[in-house]
């Protein structure tokens, strides 16, 4: 990238340690962290949840909670000690010399202020501009992000703009005063794949133009491989490994880095069960439509017919016994709506055929169907009742469907826990005592406890860390191999689904636009939307390659 113009690093952190005081005692968050970023350099900080990466970002911005205790080390911004600054000095500094871009643009923007006012505020606060001048400067800054109709966006409120537009506004605000350093906290994770790609392009362009130093926090190794110059891998508050990106990724020294790299899904490394023999479909949905907000009875009587919004429109696909069908699409494309329809959680129009039975309404699903079709949800924290023990949760399907005699339930629960690689003692624990990955295993065990023929997995790996993700995916296919159940796997992670699925269906704006065998993913016959999705996620093979151009 740009050659360093100044020998002194823009950000220099040396031997920094941070701990939090909690009722349970002092918990170390960062331990002897050393890191420096030069002008024009992008330094990636890679780690899993709870590794301390966000703590470091807040420490740099000097916005720590009251129970934080800084024990050693210093944080220098162009040689000035930030730890010695007063509150007022930091307030003058934030936004002008250090800026931050947050993960979720809808949470980072004030919902009661127009987007234009939020950009102009930075100019008024730090440049002392008048309102009109600040508004004009804001408009110029927003124009620079390549957004369509910047003048119209400026006058909108956050809820009237899309996620991508909002993130552009946040980025324009961050770059507004040409800061020396910008901290990016996973700026693309909350966006869907195609928008994330545009935001990244914008970041690369602005970085080249301004030569800003960037600290880029992420858990996404392939993304870091594309954009960063140097990388630090953080684990349990400690920097495990640091160096130029291509060196670290092509020859990782630490075991932890190697494990992380191995966990990144690669389409060519299949972990799917063998292709099942051709058979008549187990489940066939056809002409499924789900609408929200149709006109109510009174509105219709008054002749006010509002347009309903369709969560899914005329969707049809089938799943064969023992098969894993991937259902992909951006957020809001109707993937989860389909999961709810098939698991009997939402009213629908159309037909669901299961084996030789046909259903035309949600009420028609009986207990036999519900036993044969099980669902696993995205958030393991929300899908287990916090007031029931793991044993209670797992024994419920056994008792409800009378699958094993009453006396053998505890033994079967232990067996279930073992099949998902959890110790049998977990039966007496409560969900909050388990980690996210362990909870998701319990949710999977609960689904398979019912001895289903079809398991619907609604983004089950999205809320988990990369290393846990791979283990959960392997566990799922292992269980599938053992039980012969078919699986509908809903995800937005294309690399993962290409490892797992036999066939893939693509949804866009409530419609099914494409469906193909996984081997034909790269075929030119693919729908343009499928091609765009595939191009937006680079193959991890590029991680091993030469330094980024």
């Amino acid at each position, binding site marked *: 990238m740009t050659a360093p113009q100044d020998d002194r690093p823009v950000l220099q952190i040396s031997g920094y340690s941070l701990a*939090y005081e909690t*009722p349970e005692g002092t918990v170390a968050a960062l331990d002897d962290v050393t890191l420096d970023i030069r002008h024009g350099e992008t330094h990636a900080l890679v780690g899993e949840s709870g590794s301390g990466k966000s703590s470091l970002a807040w420490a740099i911005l000097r916005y720590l909670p009251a129970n934080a205790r800084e024990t050693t080390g210093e944080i220098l911004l162009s040689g000035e000690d930030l730890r010695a600054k007063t509150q007022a000095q930091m307030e003058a500094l934030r936004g002008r010399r250090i800026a931050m871009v947050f993960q979720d643009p809808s949470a980072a923007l004030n919902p009661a202020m127009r987007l234009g006012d939020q950009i102009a505020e930075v100019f008024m606060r730090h440049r002392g501009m008048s309102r009109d001048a600040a508004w004009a400067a804001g408009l110029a800054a927003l124009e620079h992000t390549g957004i369509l109709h910047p003048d119209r966006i400026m006058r909108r409120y956050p809820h009237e703009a899309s996620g991508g537009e909002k993130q552009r506004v946040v980025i324009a605000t961050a770059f507004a005063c040409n800061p020396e350093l910008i901290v990016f906290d996973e700026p693309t994770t909350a966006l869907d794949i195609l928008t994330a790609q545009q935001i990244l392009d914008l970041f690369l362009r602005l970085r080249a133009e301004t030569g800003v130093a960037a600290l880029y926090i992420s858990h996404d190794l392939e993304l870091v491989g594309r954009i960063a110059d140097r990388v630090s891998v953080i684990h349990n508050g400690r920097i495990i490994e640091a160096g130029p990106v291509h060196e670290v990724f092509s020859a990782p020294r630490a075991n932890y880095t190697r494990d992380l790299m191995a966990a990144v899904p690669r389409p060519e490394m299949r972990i799917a069960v063998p292709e099942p023999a051709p058979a008549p479909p187990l489940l066939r949905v056809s002409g499924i439509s789900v609408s929200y907000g149709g006109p109510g009875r009174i509105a219709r009587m008054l002749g006010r017919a509002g347009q309903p919004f369709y969560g899914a429109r005329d969707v049809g696909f089938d799943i064969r016994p023992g098969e894993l069908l991937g259902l992909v699409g951006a957020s809001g494309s109707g993937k989860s709506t389909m999961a709810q329809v098939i698991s009997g*959680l939402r009213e629908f129009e159309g037909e669901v055929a299961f084996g030789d039975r046909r259903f035309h309404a949600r009420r028609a*699903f009986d207990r036999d169907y519900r036993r044969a079709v099980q*669902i696993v949800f995205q958030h393991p924290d929300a*899908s287990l*009742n*916090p007031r029931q023990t793991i044993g209670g949760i797992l024994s419920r399907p056994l008792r*409800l469907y009378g699958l094993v005699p009453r006396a053998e339930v505890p033994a079967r629960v232990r067996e279930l826990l073992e099949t998902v690689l959890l110790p049998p003692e977990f039966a007496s624990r409560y969900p909050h005592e388990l980690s996210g990955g362990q909870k998701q295993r319990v949710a999977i065990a609960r689904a398979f406890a019912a001895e289903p023929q079809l398991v619907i997995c609604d983004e089950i790996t999205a809320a988990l860390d990369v290393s846990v993700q791979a283990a959960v995916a392997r566990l799922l296919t292992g269980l599938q191999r053992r039980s012969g159940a078919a699986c509908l796997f809903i995800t937005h992670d294309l690399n993962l689904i290409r490892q797992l699925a036999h066939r893939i269906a693509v949804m866009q704006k409530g419609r099914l636009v494409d469906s193909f065998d996984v081997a034909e993913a790269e075929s030119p016959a693919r729908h343009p939307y499928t091609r765009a999705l595939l191009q937006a996620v680079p193959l991890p093979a590029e991680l091993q390659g030469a330094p980024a151009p």
Partner: protein
Amino acid sequence: MREILRNPAGLVGSFLLVIVLSAAVLGPFVAPYDPQQFHAASRLQGPSAAFWLGTDQYGRDLLSRLLNGAPATVLFGLGATALGVGAGSIIGVIAGVAGGRVDSIIMRVLDGLLAMPELLFTLLIVTFLGGGTSQAMLAVAVTFTPGMARISRSAVLSVRTRDYVQAAIARGESRSWIVGREVLPNALGPIIVEATIRVSFAIMIGATLGFLGLGAQPPSTEWGLMVAEARQFMFRNPWCVAVPGVAIAITAMGFNLFGDALRDAFDPRRRRI
């Protein structure tokens, strides 16, 4: 419980509650005099060695009256709250679980009731039912019902959309299992907390009714009535108004602080990581 005691407000609240509850349980037995006994020679006196908190217009010992009135006052608060919370939560849970039109009808009726100021509504009911302690208790309970129904409905609604409830529906569980085992245990927290805070309101409304002569009748030692009876003698002996007044305030504050701390302890977002 440890969580509550760590919070300074919770500590003070628990301390006040212990005092009030022990007075309510032991009060009548440790009172130095008969609460209705006249000491004609020493009327409207300030605190002295014989009468620790002074005497009222008939020369009755204020401390004894206070201790004898404690069970009635505290029981009034607890009883009215229990009735109101019970009825309110049942209505609220029905509305929240049923949803749709049943929910709309119940909630619109409750909105109508809520539009009336609490005290005015109580007065209306008491006038209707006639004065007396049990009538007053019933009136307070009826007043509490719409608010509690609203709170328990929203607690149920927020739990009802959680994934574990969805999972139970997808499993084909019966309605009673879903309500009894999945929804209710997780919705109880906010209801219990609100109930604790409402005890203090109930005691204050009870005292107000007593003061207006619509609750307990003389010669009862109910605290609100004590204030009402003594108010014409306030300038000759301020103690006979201040003593029951402070007692009411302490009880209300105790329940209020305890309820606040309970809410903090139940709310995981308020807990530090």
